[in-house]
């Protein structure tokens, strides 16, 4: 990517900071010096260097190998398809959550938004106005559901922007309020999709990939490009890293954050629509605790709650790690409640290791 005219300027620059490959500070301190010296050259290998910087993928590999060995059913194309479909729901929201969290905010209302969007998607297609539309009646229903998601996101973002109240509080309120609206709207009943084309969608495959998995992977790619390559993505890091500096650089922080809330609202709604196609129904309790699963996945992927740090590659790792753990333990007939215990422990353990090994040189105070 370096333009040719800068090549001639590659004069030696006096170092202000490390030039040679260095292990993460925590590893340097934990390992015996001889071992550290022996490991350091390995970092010249780009794959290994990448793994050290993205520890969640090491974990994904471990989980993958572990279940492949201990379970007869894990290592199979059919099961991989399953994992992708199962993770797509949480995964899609996690994409939006990564943006919002890198921004230094959080969104707790995604589970409730998902439920409301799903209820709209299933209900609207049976409205009398669309009775003669045939399968096309699905289109306005899905569009309306997605708009509901975007609108709720915009509302969250607008309140955060204009009131300055912490996003945690605003979206906590939204979580309660929207869930209440779901019950009001559905009258505590489940809606069932009368048009079977709707529930057939989830069984659709394009080549070897189930449609749901494909949507998730395409969205992942899109959000990855958005965050890593576009101006909006750059500003997302800047606003989360140092809001004041972002303001001083002329970034309009309020509208910027609102856009990210709209994006996560969109993904929550999309996730709700896809989930309801899988079930052919929308229940008022749909998406309960999803905000916690999503945050777990995003945090496992290395995104910091304080903002300014994180990426989609890490989030994908976090989503897959959770998906494979749930799937693998399920295949091994581990009772569901133990899955929670294991996942909770792993969350804390992984973050502990990350803190231990990926410290920066000056942040190394022992508490």
């Amino acid at each position, binding site marked *: 990517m370096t*333009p040719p005219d800068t090549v001639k300027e590659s004069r030696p620059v006096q170092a*202000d900071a490390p030039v*040679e490959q260095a292990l*993460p500070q925590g590893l340097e301190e934990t390992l015996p010096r001889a071992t550290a010296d022996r490991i350091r050259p390995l970092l010249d290998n780009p794959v290994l260097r990448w793994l050290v910087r993205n520890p969640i993928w090491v974990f994904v590999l471990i989980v993958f190998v572990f279940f492949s060995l201990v379970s007869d059913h894990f290592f199979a194309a059919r099961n991989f398809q399953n994992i992708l479909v199962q993770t797509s729901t949480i995964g899609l929201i996690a994409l939006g959550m990564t943006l919002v969290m890198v921004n230094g905010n959080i969104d707790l209302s995604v589970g409730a938004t998902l439920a409301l969007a799903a209820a709209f998607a299933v209900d609207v297609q049976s409205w009398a106005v669309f009775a003669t539309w045939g399968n096309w009646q699905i289109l306005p229903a899905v569009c309306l559901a997605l708009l509901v998601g975007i609108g709720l996101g915009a509302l969250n973002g607008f309140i955060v922007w204009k009131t300055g109240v912490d996003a945690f509080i605003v979206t906590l309120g939204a979580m309660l309020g929207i869930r209440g609206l779901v019950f009001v709207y559905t009258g505590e009943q489940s809606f069932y999709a009368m048009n079977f084309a709707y529930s057939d969608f989830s069984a659709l495959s394009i080549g070897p990939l189930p449609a749901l998995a494909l949507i998730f992977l395409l969205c992942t790619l899109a959000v990855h490009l958005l965050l890593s390559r576009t*101006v909006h993505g*750059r500003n997302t890091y800047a606003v989360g890293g140092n809001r004041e500096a972002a303001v*001083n650089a*002329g970034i309009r922080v309020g509208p910027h954050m609102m856009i990210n809330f709209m994006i996560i609202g969109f993904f929550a709604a999309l996730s709700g629509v896809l989930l309801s196609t899988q079930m052919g129904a929308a229940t008022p309790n749909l998406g309960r605790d999803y905000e916690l699963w999503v945050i777990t996945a995003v945090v496992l992927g290395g995104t910091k709650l304080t903002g300014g740090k994180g990426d989609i590659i890490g989030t994908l790792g976090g989503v897959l790690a959770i998906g494979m753990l749930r799937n693998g333990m399920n295949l091994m007939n581990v009772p569901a409640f133990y899955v929670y215990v294991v996942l909770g422990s792993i969350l804390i353990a992984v973050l502990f290791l990350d803190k231990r090994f990926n410290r920066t040189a000056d942040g190394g105070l022992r508490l």
Partner: protein
Amino acid sequence: MTDMIERPAREPALRLEGIVKTFPGVRALDGVDFEVMPGEVHALLGENGAGKSTLMKVLAGMYQPDGGTIVIAGREVRMATPLEAKRQGIVLIHQELSLVPEMSAAENIYLGELPRKSFGRVDWKTLYARSDAILERLRCSFRGDATVAHLSIANQQMVEIARALTVDARVVVFDEPTASLTDAEKVVLFDIINDLKAQGVGIVYISHRMDEIFTLSDRITVLRDGQYRGTLDTAATNEDEVTRLMIGRSLDLSRDTTPARLGDTVLEVRDLTCAPHFEDVAFSVRAGEVVGFYGLVGAGRTAIAEALFGLRSCESGMIRVAGKEVTIDSPEQAIALGISLVPENRKEQGLVLQMSCRDNMTLPQVQDLTAGPFVSSGAEIAIFDQYRDRLAIKTPSWRQPVGVLSGGNQQKIVIGKWLSMQPRVLIVDEPTRGIDVGSKSEIHGLLRELAAQGYAVIVISSEMPEVLRVSDRIVAMYHGRITREFSADEVTEDALVQAISGIGVELVS
């Protein structure tokens, strides 16, 4: 190292020998020797990044050295934690205050070691009696029951010092203690240091301010690039020698006397009012000149800069940029008009520390550096390379997070960020705060150079030598008003001091 016979008659309170500390890829300390005698003030000097802070963190048990020995009162010791260091009588008074603001002064003083009664209850009576005694010794005007959050910064610093006195301190380290003190408070601090000294405590004094070091210290040790550069007797040396040791060359402190080639008036401000920060402010800046704003902290200088940059809305007045009357309601508009601001706290207001040097540099214009929907990395690197070379920014690569650079280089990144926007007016608020002497003079030179290239430059500074050195004109402010304007030829230090203290000057409106 030395034979018994060669040892000085008195045992040093503390001796560090050949201390080595390596961070990945950086040798932060490379065989540093340092000692403090009881009853001595030993100044530790060096540019930012020379290793002073690392050395002190080793001393305070926060870092473990990779090599070398620490000898306290003749015994070699290892200190694994800050608490152990404190037990050895070594106390560090931090540059950044580390107090719990919601707690009382007394609780802060004895934090972690509150006196107890049965069942672990706090013995408040003893606590307050003891802390009041210490505060009295420090001649503080407040008592132990005062809430720290309500104290002034200077008094908070006193609490920090009081904390040091709870143990039988052998060595007290002061790290830039005067950074936030007024002159009167400094006098008190120096008295305290002299008291401690008389009691036989060894003092390590870290500061960038030469005048303080020469008034206070007995000896001066200089570090450069993590290496020991020598120890000098304060009485037998001078600023020049110390500076040379510090930066490896002498410093040219003279003013660049090339007369400015003035262009048109770029910025004109009339009757600008933003109560309570400033009132009826009027001045103008022409292309090719540096206008210095000098005054006490709170005189309204920064508020003017913020108003010009759209961060503050004004009640009345007029701003003209390049002859056209404008209103500025947001930084976005200010930037579009060619006004840029290098803020006074670069870490809090200027930089996104975990972002790379390149990304910080291109932040305000990244929307113009796109190829299709994506940011063009090549265009960004081209800009970064251009300003890295122009401003002589030292960083191994554009990927380096800005947070690991030295203060001087960070400041240059902020300046480069705005220069690459081709501004008309460059406002620089406290251009060299927290920056070491070497980089300081480099930045001064840079500001002069920018003016010579036709930028209109406003420099806000609380340091008189700085204002005198870089400005073609100096605007003096007192209490939100401009009291006087000097040209570089007519200004004298006395007149300037009077103008910013509101003495005997008619208010110019």
